[in-house]
């Protein structure tokens, strides 16, 4: 492209930017006494228009008309095989690293929660190819199950955890049964609607769920009956340590790490079993599956149920960590974030999902001081990542079995579901 044409094109971009930003950025509505008032912010508009001009120009001159598709450089791709052990080691040792304080541990717990949710959803979306936009519903079912069971019946965390998983899996089957014959986008929308229904019910069924105020005072988990309090007979007392609230945080950290690794282990194992292979086959071609005698509905349901079960586990962890649940934590945006993690990670890749969770959750945490901007950047990142790398970070698939050496399969052959 000639520089003149590029400048013309960039000028056009600047013009469009002016049209977009002049009304919504240039004129800000402020709520004042007796109504609304407008306030001009033309310098901001000028900056944005300039940015559009320069950005477009740079893009055109550097990359030409077509946007670049990002590919990982070979050395980086080869380093990938060491990435998994590295991250695992890092995760195991994190609480003991010198510069790790309470804040970093909390962030670690948050990231691991999303890693676990991502791995859980990866079963449904990445392996079975079922587009689920309401995954947060199962997370909510797990969280409320734990909250209600422990508050009402005084059951301990370790009893509630499997129960919450089972209840979430049950919810998965309940939803899955009627809707699983829908395809692609339709399935996505139906699951979204289901997620919203759950949230509306949680908000309005005040007698059971506490309504918008949620449930608080949820019991904290202990380790083999040792509670993390300063009392006699607590964890610190038993081991002769000085009481430190960080003990509980470290415990919670290892708890979620364990749960996440359990998710990963089960997934990896199932992938090498007929069930996991059938999920992937389903993603590739449902009709061929039927012709081979695979019961498509049951196979989809198992994916849905197992995915939901892990969300249920994660939900009860969430409830016990916060000691508080409310419908606000289970909005559509959560589902979107988890789905973004799975897709960004590269569908079906366990490592990719973990890295994506680290990038998206840890990354947006960097912008925490810009509270309002965080989600804006998040949304923009989703668009940009899809445009430059539609197949996600790890765009290849590893075969589950081989006669000779396992060789990664290029993304062009792998279908992404229906």
């Amino acid at each position, binding site marked *: 492209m000639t520089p003149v044409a590029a400048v013309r094109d960039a000028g056009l971009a600047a013009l469009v930017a002016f049209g977009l930003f002049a009304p919504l950025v240039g004129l800000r*509505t402020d709520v004042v006494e*007796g109504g609304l*008032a*407008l306030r001009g912010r033309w310098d901001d508009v000028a900056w944005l228009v300039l940015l559009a001009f320069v950005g477009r120009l740079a893009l055109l001159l550097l990359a030409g008309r077509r946007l670049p598709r990002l590919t990982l450089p070979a050395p980086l791709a080869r380093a990938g095989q060491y990435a998994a052990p590295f991250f695992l080691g890092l995760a195991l040792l994190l609480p003991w690293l010198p510069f790790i304080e309470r804040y970093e541990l909390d962030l670690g717990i948050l990231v691991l929660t999303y890693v676990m949710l991502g791995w859980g959803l990866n079963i449904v979306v990445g392996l079975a190819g079922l587009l689920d936009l309401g995954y947060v519903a199962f997370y909510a079912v797990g969280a409320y199950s734990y909250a209600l069971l422990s508050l009402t019946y005084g059951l301990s965390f370790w009893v509630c955890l499997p129960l919450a998983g089972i209840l979430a899996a049950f919810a998965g089957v309940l939803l899955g049964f009627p809707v699983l014959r829908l395809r692609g986008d339709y399935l996505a929308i139906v699951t979204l609607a289901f997620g919203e229904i759950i949230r509306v019910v949680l908000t309005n069924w005040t007698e059971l769920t506490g309504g918008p105020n949620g449930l608080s005072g949820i019991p904290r988990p202990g380790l083999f009956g040792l509670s993390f309090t300063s009392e006699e007979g607590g964890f610190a007392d038993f081991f002769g340590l000085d009481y430190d609230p960080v003990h509980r945080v470290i415990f919670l950290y290892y708890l979620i790490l364990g749960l996440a690794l359990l998710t990963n282990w089960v997934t990896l194992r199932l992938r090498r079993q007929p069930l996991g292979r059938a999920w992937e086959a389903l993603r590739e071609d449902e009709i061929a599956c039927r012709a081979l005698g695979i019961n498509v509905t049951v196979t989809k349901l198992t994916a849905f149920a197992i995915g939901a079960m892990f969300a249920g586990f994660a939900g009860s962890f969430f409830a016990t960590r916060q000691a508080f649940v409310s419908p606000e934590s289970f909005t559509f945006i959560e589902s979107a974030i988890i789905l973004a993690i799975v897709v960004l990670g590269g569908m079906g890749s366990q490592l990719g999902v973990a890295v994506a969770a680290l990038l998206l959750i840890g990354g947006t945490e960097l912008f925490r001081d810009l509270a309002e901007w965080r989600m804006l950047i*998040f*949304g923009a*990142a*989703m668009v940009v990542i899809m445009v430059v790398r539609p197949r996600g970070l790890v765009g290849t698939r590893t075969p589950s079995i081989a006669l000779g050496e396992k060789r990664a399969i290029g993304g062009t052959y792998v279908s992404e579901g229906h």
Partner: protein
Amino acid sequence: MAYALQQLINGVSLGMIYGLIAVGYTMVYGIIGMINFAHGDVFMVGAFVSLITALLLGLGGGAAGPGALLLVLLAGMSVTALYGWTVERVAYRPLRGSFRLAPLISAIGMSILLQNYVQVAQGARVKPTGTLVPGGVTLMETDGFAVQFSYVQMLIIVVTLAVLAGFTVLVTRTPMGRAMRACEQDRKMAALLGINTDRIISLTFVIGAALAAVAGCMYLLRYGVIDFYIGFLAGVKAFTAAVLGGIGSLPGAVLGGLLIGLIETFWSAYFSAQYKDVAAFSILILTLVLMPSGLLGRQEVEKV
């Protein structure tokens, strides 16, 4: 009886708004087979641009004349159309022919982006405008219950019908509309016949966004208060309307919108206002499960 009549009026005027948004979903789905997840937020942008234009014209609080309202509507439509065009150009076009999930994720990202962009640019607080079109006529009065047909509601119905009539002429009578329908039938074939399909797709987004802006403007007039989050729910409901009417079918979208508006209004009036969204979502699920081709849609049989 009077009460029901009132609900009917309310339901139809609400349904018109849903119908206008639903047309955008249906058009885009028909032509490129994707759910434009950001369409609800485009509607929200339309409402905001209308609000800002109204304030610019000094309409805050008091009654507005027809000329001023027309200006508000036109400004809203043109700016929002530009947003629609940009969304397609930036987030969807680079992904054409890519993996099927990518545009959907990109659309979800775009929806989050638009929502938070408006939140950052305009603030998170709700924006009350007061009534711009006050008054109405009392149709009947029984047992102390007066059936009101407000001027706003009349305006909504008249404007929506006029816009939809213009839109129908555009799609059925003009060469451009023919090209659009050709793309909808078979995009590859249309491209072979020399139709610039990229342009037609852009146009689809532009028109869809303009219609959503009309809906946004009507919403603003009707409720007198908006915020950056209105797009999500309205979007899901309008999508429900599109599905109920049969996705891909333009009359279906309007019909679906009317039905959703009526169902929601009557549900709130007779059962429970708190669960009115559950009603809409349940209809969505039931329609998709029981009759995925909707009321007026074409039946699709999968060939093996």
